[in-house]
């Protein structure tokens, strides 16, 4: 497979497409579409490695395009490139589009090149992985860690998933302590805990342990924050509080499946790779705690 990887750009402004085509056509085969409908038609006809879409377009939104792309071309990586950071569209891009990155306009060409190159690498690694044998799935049921101060979520999840080991903790430290003993498949967590915002901890956790699937439950409504959660923590789902039971259980179901998939095909893990986080000295205590947990995990004898 020596053909150039294929990118698909979707934007209703033709000048945006022109500059993107110009910027990427040397290294990639570049397709472009000015509407969601056109993009979907192209996705059905051509193998596409990375879809990069604007959010705000007249007939179909970017989230809708990426959701369709997930169905038609599940292996393609999805990136939202938009200047329109509305809360609903970001939550939609996480939950429905399962996007790899959220890039804000106006973009820096260098950064966009790096992000796309990374996405293309991941697609290719995953494609190679499909030809390698599947890692035997250990029969052990995957665990769920619920990190929340109120017991309601924990009770609900324990009742819905009696076959899984469901654990709960009030604080990050407690959760890390227990997770070191029983590494969970899925972490269901609020962002606001007694020790403050745990976004940083999530970022570090996900960077070190990409097979951990994170479902965030939050009343928090800051768009910039959610964008960082996508780009730097690759959260799998964001559910607004108050949480609908159905939505939570459905999300959990698909999070568990997703974890199984990741364990079967470790190469897929790279799809969840996160942006390098500049070391933030002000959060060094959180980093230390997370590192401590990771060390403890590594110290355990790995299953033969």
């Amino acid at each position, binding site marked *: 497979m020596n053909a150039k990887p294929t990118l698909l750009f979707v934007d209703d*402004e033709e*000048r*945006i497409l*022109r*500059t*993107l085509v*110009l*910027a990427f*056509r*040397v290294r990639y085969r570049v397709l472009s579409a000015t509407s969601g409908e056109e993009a979907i038609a192209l996705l059905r006809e051509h193998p596409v490695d990375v879809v990069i879409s604007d959010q*705000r*377009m*007249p007939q179909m939104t970017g989230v809708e395009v990426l959701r369709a792309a997930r169905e038609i071309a599940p292996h393609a990586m999805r990136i939202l490139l938009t*200047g*329109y950071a509305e809360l609903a569209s970001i939550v939609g891009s996480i939950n429905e589009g399962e996007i790899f990155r959220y890039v804000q*306009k*106006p*973009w*820096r*060409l*260098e950064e966009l090149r790096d992000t796309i190159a990374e996405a293309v690498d991941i697609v290719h690694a995953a494609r190679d992985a499909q030809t390698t044998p599947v890692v035997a799935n250990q029969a052990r049921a995957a665990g769920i860690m619920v990190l929340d101060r109120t017991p309601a979520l924990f009770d609900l999840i324990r009742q819905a998933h009696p076959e899984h080991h469901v654990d709960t903790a009030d604080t990050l430290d407690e959760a890390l302590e227990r997770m070191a003993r029983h590494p969970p498949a899925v972490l269901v967590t609020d962002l606001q805990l007694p020790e403050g915002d745990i976004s940083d901890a999530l970022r570090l956790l996900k960077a070190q342990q990409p097979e951990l699937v994170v479902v965030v439950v939050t009343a928090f409504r800051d768009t910039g924050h959610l964008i960082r959660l996508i780009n730097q923590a690759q959260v799998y789902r964001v559910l607004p509080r108050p949480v609908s039971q159905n939505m939570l259980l459905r999300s959990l179901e698909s999070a568990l499946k997703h974890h199984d998939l990741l364990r079967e095909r470790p190469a897929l893990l790279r799809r969840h790779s996160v942006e390098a986080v500049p070391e933030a000295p002000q959060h060094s205590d959180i980093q230390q705690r997370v590192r401590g947990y990771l060390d403890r995990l590594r110290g355990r004898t790995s299953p033969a």
Partner: protein
Amino acid sequence: MAAVRKTRISDLTMRVHPIPPGMRVADVADLFLADACRDLLCLPVVQDGQPLGVISRYAIMRIFLRQYGREIFGQRPIERFMNTAPLMVDIDADVEAASAWVRQHMVLPVTEDFIIVEQGHYRGMGMVTSLLELMEHHVALRGRALARANASLKASQAHLVQSEKMASLGQMVAGVAHEINTPLGYVRSNVELARDFVSQTSSALVASRNLIHCLLDERASDEEISGHLMTAAEETEAVSQSGILEEVSPLFDDTLHGLEQISELVVNLRNFSRLDRARVDHVNLNESLDSALTIGRNLIKHKAEVICDYGDLPSVECAASQINQVFLNILTNAAQAIADYGRITVRTRTLADTDQVEVRIRDNGCGMPEEVRARIFDPFFTTKPVGQGTGLGLSISYQIIEQHRGSIDVVSTPGEGTEFVLCLPCRQTASAAQNPVLAEAAGSEA
């Protein structure tokens, strides 16, 4: 002023010793002459604690003023002359209710005070004048409270108007920011590309120059020449492979177009706010509508096609930034009324023989039922979900048009759409003192 503020009926109670019904008229008259009774208009007649009536100084006077009155009636018991239906107030009664009741039932001129009872038993007398005084005091207190409430209401109304302004300003800024973001996106990308292109072409240029130098140099060996030729061929081939040469011109066209768009937005933003203009100005409303449409483009362009049918308009004397705000408000409401994609029609014309200009803004959106239409200019009325509208936008628009001595009407049919019809006079004729538009302008520019 009493040191202790009187607030209840019991505070008014005077312990007046009552007289028995059998007391003789002459003795009652003597009592009225006593110093202790000097301030009393009347005396209570009580038997076994039950008030039977009152006898007033006035009634005694009437008896004695008759010829031989004292001689004929002096020995008779007082009960035959007393008022058997006196004013009675319960000691626990509310001051306001009691005073209302007393005022309603008292007879003028005031000749009797009222009896204060507790569960039907005599407790004392109360003076009508003190009750009215007390009431007056209450009213004054309430008046002060009302004035305070009124002041705080005014302040919070001003605050709300301000926050509506800030909210629409925020919405406007967000919209314009997004509008600028798109051209900025490709302009930036194009400039970055152009920089790459320049560095690529310049290395091809250097290689070609080296080749030429080499060819012109008599001492150059064949190897050197072919080396330079190879490099120059590779470099120029790379440049033509990249397609830069064909693309560079449209690239700059796009960049200039983007910059044009950004400057247009900035110009419109300035026109819209009119910060650099006199507050009251003579403006062409067609231009005002255009700048409102540009500012609102981000909200409108995905919801509707806009058709402008402008007539030839004379200039209109108005506070242009306010009128722009009204137009933007109505245009964004029109866009919000459209579910998928519709049409907004903007028509302007001069009304014949009236020196008035008419602006019609029509959408083919969801329309509204009569009960909504009737209330849309009411403050705080909104059909938007909580948190999305203050319900002040149209009410402020209404005020602005009214201050300009214009009119704003709305016609709507559910399912078919809504039309706003605005009329503005070309001249604000009234003097500054009477015209809020001019007055405010004078104030703000003084």
